């Protein structure tokens, strides 16, 4: 290239980049939606993203961030602006000693405990709580119906769950303090995913932390134990939004999603995800069915 051509190319490239950055800034504020590292949460974030895009809001998705201990600081420091959360678990993270357990109590307590920078929108009736699950064989062998029934035999059983259960109150320490359970060992696997389910079915672990919307509970006849002492509080789906990003359109769109989302929806969608339908497809189907897509 001749010198003249080279300078001309450089100049036009520089102009284009300046122009595009000015143009992008003009296009309005971008909303960054984050999610935790399990499929259901990624699905909810994708649903939020799809609905907001249908309202011509520019959205960037940062899915699969990690556990609450990682993404809540990210929400507070502005790395993400929106996160689909579970009311009880978030409350436990913010205030470990809180006694609220019904949906209304948890929502009311959460409003007071959330930091100033973020706001919670309306809760949905859809819930996805942690459950302790055992196989039907184990339940029949020890006559297990509630978590209390595990007390006499906990020392012979292996518990399986995600790594965050080692330090969380709604985990190994909570089971010890509230129910007096001291399991033989705790195996770190995943968040109610294929590793935990395989280990439960093949008896490497006898008690597993699953979620109430895990489709395998119904499919493989697993028994979810009752939680009479309410260690696992109500877990309604609720969007948490950074106040700096919040505007009436975002608020009304996400509230519309929360109003129409049900627990049965979650179970059905999780079943589809388990059969390898892509997250984007499942989210798009739900949005179209409820008239929230483009």
């Amino acid at each position, binding site marked *: 290239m001749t010198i003249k051509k080279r300078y001309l190319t450089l100049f036009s490239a520089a102009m284009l980049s300046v122009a595009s950055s000015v143009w992008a800034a003009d296009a309005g504020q971008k909303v960054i939606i984050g999610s935790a590292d399990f499929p259901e949460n990624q699905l909810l974030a994708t649903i939020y993203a799809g609905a907001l895009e249908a309202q011509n809001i520019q959205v960037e998705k940062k899915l699969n961030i990690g*556990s609450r201990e990682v993404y809540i600081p990210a929400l507070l420091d502005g790395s993400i602006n929106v996160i689909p959360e579970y009311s009880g678990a978030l409350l436990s993270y913010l205030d470990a000693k809180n006694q609220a357990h019904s949906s209304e109590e948890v929502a009311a307590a959460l409003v007071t405990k959330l930091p100033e920078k973020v706001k919670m929108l309306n809760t949905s009736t859809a819930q996805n709580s942690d459950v302790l699950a055992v196989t039907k064989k184990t339940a029949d062998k020890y006559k297990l119906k509630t978590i209390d029934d595990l007390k006499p035999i906990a020392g012979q059983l292996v518990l399986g769950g995600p790594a965050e259960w080692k330090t969380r109150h709604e985990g190994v320490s909570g089971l010890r303090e509230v129910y007096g359970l001291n399991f033989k060992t705790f195996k770190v696997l995943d968040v109610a995913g294929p590793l935990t389910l395989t280990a439960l079915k093949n008896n490497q672990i006898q008690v597993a932390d699953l979620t109430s919307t895990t489709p395998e509970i119904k499919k493989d006849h697993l028994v979810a134990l009752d939680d009479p002492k309410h260690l696992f509080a109500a877990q309604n789906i609720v969007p948490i939004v950074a106040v700096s990003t919040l505007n009436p359109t975002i608020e009304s769109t996400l509230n519309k999603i929360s109003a129409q989302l049900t627990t049965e929806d979650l179970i059905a969608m999780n079943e589809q995800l388990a059969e390898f339908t892509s997250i984007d497809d499942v989210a798009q189907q739900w949005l179209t069915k409820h008239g929230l897509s483009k």
Partner: protein
Amino acid sequence: MSDWFFTLSHWYGDDGIVPLLLQHMAYSAVALAIAVTVAFPVGCYTGHTGKGEALLIGITNALRSLPSFGLIILLVILLAGYFESDMAFVLPCIIVLVVLALPPVALGVHAGIRSVDPNVHDAAKGIGLTPLQVLMQVELPCAIPLIISGIRSAALQIVSTATIAAYVSLGGLGRLIIDGRAANDFAQMTAGAVLVALLALVIDVFFSLSEKFVVSPGLSRRTKNP
């Protein structure tokens, strides 16, 4: 972060450095031993006879491209039905580490034997050694530097990758990294990473020192009298 190292429970507790380190070294040692046992004869055969070189290179390239992380999870899901105990996790972990170590060891042995001077090979045949004697008494001793370098490379890869054992509920130094990440405890996570790096360094130094004792002085020109 150095505070993390000064807490005694972090050294000897349930997930303490000492038990995790011992587990890590145990998985690595077993995997390395199996890999050397399998790959050494294969490399000897292809190096000595010269046959099957293309096949060896093709297979080792294919093995190198297998993603260890995906493979370990796949093996756990496939094999968990056959074992009721921890073996359902330990066996996939060892298999994955062995698969990782086979290419460097096999290629190291193969290259080492192939690199022996043809004159030396000729001289050995000339004095009447049988092919097996040529292999054992002449080719292998000459090939030791490259063989050790192959085993060293395999050992380093195994030690670094053994951290994935923690993902399927086993121990090892990966436990510190994974638990630290989930609990947002950067001190624990960094400590795990630093310890893995230190262990790899120690193993590397060990192998480079061992070369001094194992390689014949004539090969490394350390003899004083020519």
